[in-house]
């Protein structure tokens, strides 16, 4: 129920005691200011963490093969496990939707030359999905596509720094480069956020490499991303399942650590989310601590206000004010002060974050900010805080006996 007269009474009371209202609001404003800044800084820290993992997709799983270290089912230890296209097909078939992107890789070192310039680069022969898993970006031209795989074309996509090294100031796109003695046409130049090493890299189609280097269907490494809807526990289980199935396929002792290895980003993600949780928890504890201090502050001042207004409350009671009317005056005044002050703190806090953001980046704090949901959460918290702060004083006020209040000269 909206009672205009009640609000008029409250605004009159706040307005008549501006200093007092301001002072009582100050603690809350300060608490919310601290909370906002802390929260923003915490968020900034998390953003920095998130950025630390941007090289590849953060839902990727790498699969390596090695040599067996245990004899199993009549097979000797020291046996070399070699992946082929069969394993690639097997994974796609077996897991379907659970795999978002997948690429096989043949890894070699390549002596690459263009005219007089010459250098040695790692190269990767890949499937087109590699683009998404590595989070490459095309700077010029195109990436390797399915046609290249089918036709075994002799094309290459080179990193930004390869172009810089070999082509100096000229354009690489459309030119032919020599890789280990064979001519490949440069069809694209890519960039990668993973650092210089990732941009000193040459990609060619997998099928081309398999034909040129040994005419087989060998694969050195498989790299995939799991369906992003999986949480980190599901993803860990998924990785283990892949490993188990492959070990079974190659008849490897299930306890053999070396034969097939899995590098699951979910492990890192799990660690990161633990750190995120720790930071959020810390911010929450400190934030709530300051908020509670603010509530106690408002509550104290409201108790003082009730004391100061004892006589007035006595007069009102003598004139026929019912206890609930006294309670609402005190409670709503408290809530109002808390909300107004709280929002002042929130806005100042957001302003401070906005202003200080650029200079904080060197302290591992990136884009510190608070979200809309935080603001809504804060509003609800503030209303609750004001109610808590006002409850005891309001109760005290409603119990004032008019006779004692009026005697109180």
């Amino acid at each position, binding site marked *: 129920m909206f009672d205009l007269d009640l609000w008029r009474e409250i605004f009159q009371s706040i307005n008549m005691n501006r200093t007092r209202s301001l002072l009582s609001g100050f603690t809350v404003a300060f608490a919310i200011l601290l909370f906002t800044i802390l929260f923003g800084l915490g968020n900034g820290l998390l953003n920095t963490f998130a950025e630390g993992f941007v090289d590849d997709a953060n839902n990727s799983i790498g699969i390596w093969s090695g040599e067996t270290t245990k004899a199993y089912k009549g097979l000797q230890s020291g046996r070399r496990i070699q992946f082929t296209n069969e394993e690639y097909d097997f994974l796609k078939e077996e897991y379907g939707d659970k795999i978002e992107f997948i690429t096989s890789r043949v890894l070699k070192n390549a002596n690459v030359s263009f005219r007089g310039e010459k250098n040695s680069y790692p190269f990767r022969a890949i499937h087109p999905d590699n683009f998404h898993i590595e989070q490459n970006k095309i700077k010029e031209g195109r990436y390797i596509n399915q046609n290249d795989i089918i036709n075994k074309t002799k094309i290459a996509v080179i990193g930004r720094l390869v172009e810089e090294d070999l082509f100096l100031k000229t354009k690489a796109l459309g030119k032919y480069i020599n890789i280990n003695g064979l001519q490949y046409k440069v069809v694209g130049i890519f960039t990668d956020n993973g650092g210089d090493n990732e941009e000193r890299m040459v990609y060619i189609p997998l099928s081309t490499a398999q034909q040129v280097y040994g005419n087989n269907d060998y694969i050195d490494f498989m790299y995939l991303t799991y369906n992003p809807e999986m949480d980190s526990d599901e993803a860990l289980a998924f990785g283990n399942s892949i490993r188990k199935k492959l070990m079974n396929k190659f008849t490897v002792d299930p306890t053999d650590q070396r034969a097939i290895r899995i590098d699951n980003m979910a492990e890192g993600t799990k660690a990161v989310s633990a750190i995120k949780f720790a930071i959020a928890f810390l911010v929450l504890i400190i934030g709530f601590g300051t908020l509670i201090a603010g509530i106690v502050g408002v509550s104290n001042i409201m108790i003082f206000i009730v004391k100061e207004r004892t006589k*007035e409350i006595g007069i009102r009671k003598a*004139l026929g004010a*019912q206890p609930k009317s006294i309670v609402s005056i005190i409670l709503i005044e408290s809530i109002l002060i808390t909300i107004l002050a709280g929002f002042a703190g929130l806005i100042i806090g957001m302003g401070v974050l906005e202003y200080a953001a650029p200079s904080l980046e060197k302290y591992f704090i990136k884009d510190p900010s608070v979200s809309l949901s935080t603001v809504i959460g804060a509003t609800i918290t503030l209303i609750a805080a004001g109610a808590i702060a006002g409850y005891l004083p309001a109760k005290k006020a409603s119990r004032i*006996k008019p006779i004692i209040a009026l005697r109180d000269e």
Partner: protein
Amino acid sequence: MLKISNLHKSYPIGDSSLHVLKGIDLSVESGEMVAIMGSSGSGKSTLLNIIGMLDEADSGDYVLDEVPIKDLTEKKAAIYRNKFLGFIFQSFNLINYKDALENVALPLYYQGLKRKERQEKGKFHLEKVGLLEWAHHLPSELSGGQKQRVAIARALASNPKLLLADEPTGALDTQTSHEIMEFIQQLNDEGKTILMVTHEEDIASMCKRIVRLKDGIIIEDAFVNQVRASEYV
């Protein structure tokens, strides 16, 4: 109108207790103007407070306008005070941040009247005490006599059956006291029942009946020839 029988009240003081009212019997008819007199500590203010439902008696009966006043909840007491009683205090007890009109209209707010109606009634009563042009002045801008007149207007606003005055002239000079008393007498002439605590003989003599208290009992209760305050003004 008002009937009190065998009323007792004591206040705890440390471990012992102070017996303030020791069996009061009093009845007041409609239209009376009664002064309750006594030295300080005689229990006269306590009696008025109990009549005003600001305080509760320990034992005894109190019937106001045929309604027994007993075991009231806070809410009930508030409603009765608002409906039956108008208070006039020695120290005026105006709310200092509200102007004269707002003070007068406050009991009407607790009656649940609409703002417009409150303003109208408030103005009517301010006019009655001759302070309409002071409606938007704060109490701090008024003289003592004006303040008391605002307080009287406030007491009248809810149209109570009984006016209770606790030393209404205690804080005023003689001249102003007589003006206030003249006004209170006029209200009585119009039919209002008035109960007044005072320790001044000349003020008491302006009432129609004087009840004297001593050590918590009534020692004298007599009708007197009313002295009109207008004779002094």
